[in-house]
């Protein structure tokens, strides 16, 4: 019989610390599957962020560096320049990437740095207890926007993919979601594609994954998935925002 | 023996190069040397200057405040530094730009019409080399041969075709010293 499903080799057997219903675990798995499929486990170096995924290095069976808050793209740059043959990816949340680390992500993208960024957007700071993130939706209640995000006072959410797609440096930018099996499969393909772009030396690739935070949203896991689908996707549309391959085809 | 020099003038008169050649020449003669460009607040007042120290011992301060020798290429720098030269020291000043200079007792003072001589050589830019030639002649702090050799090392390759002109200017300046 052919084995069609198994535990990814690139994940350690360790149980994650993530909350019940959190989608980090799914996304970790998708990354590990891509690494397995592409046969790059022995040459991959990951960069863990500050945020809920700070312990990501416990779960991936690949070399890792822990970065300071927001600095992962700079750290990834340093690693990639020393080992151009390595496959380097950062795993960053929305506070990390789109707030404190905006300079790092924009300039890594602008340089066309040949790295892959997995960007988790769940519209809150998870680990610190559910504060407002740069991606928090208008009106959304968080611990630091207790009356709902008031766009007249704190401004608008940042759409990272759209913003980075204006640059000439990136090779591949896609936004995906993990709210149902169909979309999880699509997300897996996007992550794999991003790694393939790096392997081919095409340059900077980023996959934004719309994700849930049932704990800080105060929703059950199922309700959280519904919110993702009904409230987040309309604001953060899914799709490929930039692909140099398609540009070449046109 | 430690010999300390200040080279000063307008920016663009090539005073930094004079200093570099003195330092390089000293190095080629096996001495300890330092060269230090004017920096920060000293830049005010329109003069550029550099300090050079040539010594048999390890050099202490690279910043010279009481020089043994002064090369002043314009009026403001002459005014600024003339009073700092040690007794028994030497001043070479550019008499093309400094028409009247007071005689300072206890100092060897040599007026050199550097711009006029440089013009005679066909290139006003080598006025600094005329002054350096005169300074070397007056103080014997390095040899003319060392200064010429230093030119080859200090000037970028693309300017090496100008070395004969610079050497001619050095020699003209040196010839002023009887």
């Amino acid at each position, binding site marked *: 019989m052919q084995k069609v499903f198994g535990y990814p080799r690139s994940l350690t057997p360790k149980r994650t610390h993530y909350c019940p219903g959190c989608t980090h675990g799914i996304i970790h798995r998708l990354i590990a599957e891509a690494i397995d499929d592409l046969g790059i486990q022995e040459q991959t170096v990951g960069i863990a962020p500050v945020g809920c995924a700070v312990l990501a290095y416990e779960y991936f069976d690949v*070399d890792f560096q822990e970065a*300071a808050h927001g600095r992962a793209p700079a750290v990834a*740059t*340093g690693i990639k320049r020393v080992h151009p043959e390595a496959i380097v990816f950062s795993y960053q949340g929305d506070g990390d990437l789109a707030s404190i680390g905006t300079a790092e992500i924009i300039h890594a993208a602008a340089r066309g740095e040949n790295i892959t960024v997995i960007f988790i957007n769940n519209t809150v700071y998870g680990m610190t207890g559910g504060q407002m993130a740069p991606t928090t939706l208008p009106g959304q209640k968080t611990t630091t926007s207790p009356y709902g995000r008031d766009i007249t006072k704190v401004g608008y959410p940042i759409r990272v993919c759209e913003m980075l797609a204006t640059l000439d440096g990136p090779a591949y930018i896609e936004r995906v979601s993990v709210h149902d099996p169909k979309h999880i499969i699509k997300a897996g393909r996007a992550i794999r594609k991003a790694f393939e772009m790096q392997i081919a030396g095409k340059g900077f690739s980023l996959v934004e994954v719309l994700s849930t935070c049932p704990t800080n949203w105060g929703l059950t896991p199922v309700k959280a998935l519904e919110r993702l689908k009904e409230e987040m996707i309309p604001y953060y549309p899914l799709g490929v925002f930039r692909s140099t391959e398609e540009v070449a085809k046109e | 023996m430690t010999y300390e020099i200040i080279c000063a003038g307008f920016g663009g008169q090539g005073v930094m190069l004079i200093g570099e050649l003195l330092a390089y020449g000293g190095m080629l003669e096996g001495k300890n040397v330092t060269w230090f460009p004017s920096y920060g607040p000293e830049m005010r007042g329109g003069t550029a200057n550099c300090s050079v120290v040539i010594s048999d011992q390890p050099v*202490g301060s690279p910043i010279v405040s009481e020089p043994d020798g002064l090369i002043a290429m314009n009026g403001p720098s002459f005014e600024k530094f003339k009073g700092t030269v040690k007794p028994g020291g030497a001043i070479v000043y550019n008499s093309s730009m400094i028409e009247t200079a007071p005689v300072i007792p206890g100092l060897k003072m040599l007026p050199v019409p550097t711009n006029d001589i440089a013009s005679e050589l066909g290139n006003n830019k080598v006025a600094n080399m005329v002054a350096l030639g005169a300074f070397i002649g007056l103080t014997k702090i390095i040899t003319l041969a060392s200064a010429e050799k230093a030119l080859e090392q200090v000037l970028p390759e693309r300017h090496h075709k100008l070395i004969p002109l610079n050497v001619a200017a050095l020699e003209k300046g040196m010839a002023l010293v009887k």
Partner: protein
Amino acid sequence: MERVMMKGNEALAEGAIRAGCRFFFGYPITPQNEIPEYMARRMPEVNGVFIQAESEVSAINMVYGAGGAGGRALTSSSSPGISLKQEGISYLAGAQVPCVIVNVARGGPGLGGLTPSQSDYFQATKGGGHGDYHLIVYAPGTGQEMVDLIGLAFDKAEEYRNPVMILTDAIMGQMMEPVILPPIREVTTEKPWATTGKKGRAKPNLINSLGIIGEDLARINIELQEKYRKIETNEIRYEADGTGDADLIVVAYGTTSRVARSAINMLRAEGKKVGLLRPITLWPFPKQILADLAAQGKRFLVVEMSVGQLVEDVILAVNDRAKVDFFGKLNGTVPTVREVYNTINALLQKGGA
């Protein structure tokens, strides 16, 4: 070997290249721009990497990535930029990533000035960033030491897996002096801890300073402190010139040590017994030699371009066994030889302790 004239900043840069540094990440700031400019020209010639980062913050984190991946990585900056790098420096120390950081210091606080200063001594030697950590800090006193100490810095950084700082200033950086350059060396240090990709290793490598699990943080700190004690035992460097018969010893590093040396030479020519103690490592600090000299009845004068930072370490080392005087210039001016000469003379005339 042939002597060549080089500016201090360029001597540092070429010294790094000769010592096998192939990764430079920097950001423009006066008065250290000669270093990134030199590296931008030079790195491509040796198949190295030069990146002008988007900020000092990014530059130090690129160093973290590159150093953690096993490369010989360097960044340089000047005081305000070094303040920005402090977050990264703390992480580098915590994760034990070898690298070299150059501070061509200028006056502060805040934007300060462009003129030379020694007012970053505390920042360099007492931490600078958060947490209990130390950098090895070298203070070059000559152009030749710019070349030699940056080479040593890379070796020591790797030997101890610790970031090393070269603390210098605008005078040392702008001054030209003859130097002898060593040949380019191949670096063959084994770095079994580096993140290279597992490449068949059973366990993945991890570069990390996080210690939230169980006793991790205590373990990390105990390990660091043991390392620091070893560095204090083995790595202290200083120059003692004429301290044997001296009644008064000037303590100074870098630029002020040069000014002091000129003043001391004048005084010794007059038969006065004055010596120079020049710390070459600012951390670890040469405490014992100072304590020994104090026990012999010497008195001290500390000369700094600051309101008095090094002087605190001298007072601690001397520990009330001798008198310590201070002469400092506030940011922007270098003490003249005459000022230091007069200060020493006045102290000698006032008589002993």
